């Protein structure tokens, strides 16, 4: 058993009390034993402890990322995902079922859960398919999969188009107290679009998808969630109209929550520039007005969760013209650094940011992580909010390096990541 430790002289971010204050944390046996302003260099632990000077850097709960794609479920994939997550300060994540094989089988859920932590090194939970084969036609075995350990149900990148089936899914999931997470895109309205509809898409000559393709399905979902009172989380919204729909539904006490991708918070359609295929994302990058609306949504707490939408792609898949290129980008390693842009330049305070990055997603998923209180797991990170670094592909730990932030300077870096009190990542190592 490792020695008990006292981290002192830290900038503590508490997303529950919403405070940003100086203090320290006492940990032992994988748990938080004490935390607060009274934990200093002079703290009397009564037993031999190791004292660590955090030097005024941020000490905060590890991030909880509820949208991570894995290509498979093999040990190497689990390991790579864990390494990327740890480097990005993500201590818990939920993987999406869109892997090869699709996660829709009880044995597969048990297989992942049985070894995910030992292999990946982090808390890796799996969701399961909402419909069989993610085809949006027949229900998956929600009850059995939940019993096996699936923490949420989603078709990942796919949206259930059939409204009758979606209503039944919500009704059925409610009886099992299961959470449905949904991507919202009307297939017909989206058509063959590959970026946001507007003047810029017209100029590039790229087929585009209108915002209404997202909003119309979201409005349907919200109406059905309100009707059935089932637990519903919209995975990623991307435009002001969707945010308004979420605000309206919440004001009517519908049991819903909403997420946004870090990409839609920090990038807009103009970043596509001259057909940069790494910026081919879902939902597509929208206008600057929409991006600012997303930031406001985080600031006001109307959007509950920020996700990385980590989606590694084979480099060959991106070596195509924009419209033919694979969709998606890696994001685990850059999630926090990119999110800190909201703190540095958009007036979002750190507790608010952490609420969306750790506490809220854990609460929505029903996980006892994402905050630091006496007796909670010692899953935390130490962060230098000022540290500037250039996102170079060679500098990423991820096997895939399709980052939309390539060659950008981000401000803020994870210095160390701890799980159950054990250091699993340290910058420079």
């Amino acid at each position, binding site marked *: 058993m490792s020695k008990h430790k006292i981290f002192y002289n830290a900038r503590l971010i508490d997303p529950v009390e919403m405070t940003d204050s100086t203090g320290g944390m006492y940990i032992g046996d994988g748990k938080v034993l004490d935390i607060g302003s009274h934990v200093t260099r002079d703290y009397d632990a009564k037993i031999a402890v190791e004292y660590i000077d955090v030097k005024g850097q941020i000490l905060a709960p590890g991030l909880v990322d509820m949208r991570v794609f894995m290509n498979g479920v093999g040990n190497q994939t689990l390991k790579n995902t864990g390494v990327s997550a740890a480097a990005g300060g993500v201590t818990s994540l939920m993987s999406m079922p869109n892997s090869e094989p699709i996660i829709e089988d009880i044995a597969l859920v048990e297989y992942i859960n049985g070894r995910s932590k030992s292999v990946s090194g982090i808390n890796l939970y799996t969701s399961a398919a909402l419909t069989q084969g993610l085809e949006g036609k027949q229900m998956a075995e929600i009850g059995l999969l939940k019993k096996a350990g699936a923490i949420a149900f989603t078709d990942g990148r796919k949206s259930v188009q059939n409204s009758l089936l979606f209503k039944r899914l919500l009704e059925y999931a409610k009886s099992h107290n299961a959470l449905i997470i949904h991507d919202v895109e009307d297939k017909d309205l989206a058509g063959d679009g590959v970026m946001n509809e507007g*003047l810029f898409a*017209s100029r590039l*000559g790229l*087929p585009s998808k209108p915002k209404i393709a997202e909003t119309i399905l979201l409005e349907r979902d919200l109406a059905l969630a309100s009707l059935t009172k089932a637990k519903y989380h919209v995975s990623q919204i991307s435009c002001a109209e969707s945010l308004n729909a979420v605000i309206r539904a919440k004001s009517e006490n519908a049991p819903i929550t909403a997420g946004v991708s870090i990409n839609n918070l920090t990038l807009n359609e103009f970043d596509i520039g001259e*057909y940069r295929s790494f910026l081919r994302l879902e939902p597509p990058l929208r206008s600057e007005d929409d991006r600012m609306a997303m930031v406001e949504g985080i600031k006001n707490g109307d959007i509950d969760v920020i996700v990385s939408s980590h989606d590694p792609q084979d480099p060959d898949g991106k*070596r195509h*013209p924009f*419209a*033919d290129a694979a969709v998606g980008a890696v994001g685990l390693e850059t999630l926090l650094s990119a999110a800190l842009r909201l703190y540095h330049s958009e007036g979002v305070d750190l507790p608010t940011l952490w609420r969306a990055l750790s506490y809220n997603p854990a609460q929505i998923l029903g996980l006892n992580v994402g905050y630091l209180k006496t007796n909670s797991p010692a899953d935390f990170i130490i962060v230098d909010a000022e540290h500037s670094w250039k996102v170079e592909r060679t500098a990423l730990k991820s096997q895939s390096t399709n980052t939309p932030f390539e060659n950008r300077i981000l401000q803020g870096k994870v210095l160390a990541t701890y799980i159950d009190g054990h250091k699993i990542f340290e910058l420079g190592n």
Partner: protein
Amino acid sequence: MKNFENMMKPHFADKHLLGIEGLKEANITALLDLAEKKIEQSRRDTKKTDVLQGRTQINLFFESSTRTQASFEIAGKRLGADVLNMAVAHSSIKKGETLIDTAATLNAMQPDLLVIRHHSAGAVELLSQKVNCAVINAGDGRHEHPTQALLDALTIRRNKGKLARLTIAICGDILHSRVARSNIILLNIMGARVRLIAPPTLLPAGAEKMGCEVFHDMEEGLKGVDIVMMLRLQTERMQGAFIPSAREYHQFYGLTEKKLSYANDDAMVMHPGPMNRGVEIDSVVADSARSLIREQVEMGVAVRMGVLEALSNNWLSKNKGGA
């Protein structure tokens, strides 16, 4: 000394012709002037010169095309280049090699001029970054088709004596048309007034912000127009998804003698071809004295000769000068 060098620079000094966007009025005028000189050459009995002798031109068409490919082939051959046509089926590309691999393979064959058509917007630009020769965009997705816009401009200039201050209506399927896009950009650069006439379902988002006036009615839109440019409507788009039927489209947007009468008395008619007679244009109009459609085809060869020569010279001077 600096000023003198500037004066000596050709007005079109780019390495590639990827689109009209980014060109300046002087660049376009220079290309049109050069193309104008090539018209005579094609009308002679002996059409071939040795301007591009020893140069290799590859026409790489990822999307099938008869007319444009033939036009580029003839243009290259009349200038003395060795021309090779490569048709690359869409499916084989999707299955195997990436576009960048294709570029590397071709580049190793040391071509001097690459003429590329691709179904995906931005694909030609992507290829141009990976090869060591001049690249000409012969159409990429819905993005651009610069030589078509240039040949249209040359045709107009020869018939109207100018481009500036003319009123030009582009009619039909603007949404899916790279020809429309390149023409809108070129005509705006040259100071023409551009109108778009189309049903709302065939207009791109933000059309009114592209320097155009937008109309949904031919009678209103054609008033005072000097040039009527019709666009082709693909057969698969006539059957209900974008417009109710070919019959209805013809009724409201097909260019008939009657509709043409709303335009100026000396208005001329253009079409990039191939035409759907009886759908977007009536035969009476297409074959009338006011039609420039056949002249457009002739100007196509001249413009492509001009572009091939200009780009070839630009690369030559770069290599020689070591700059």
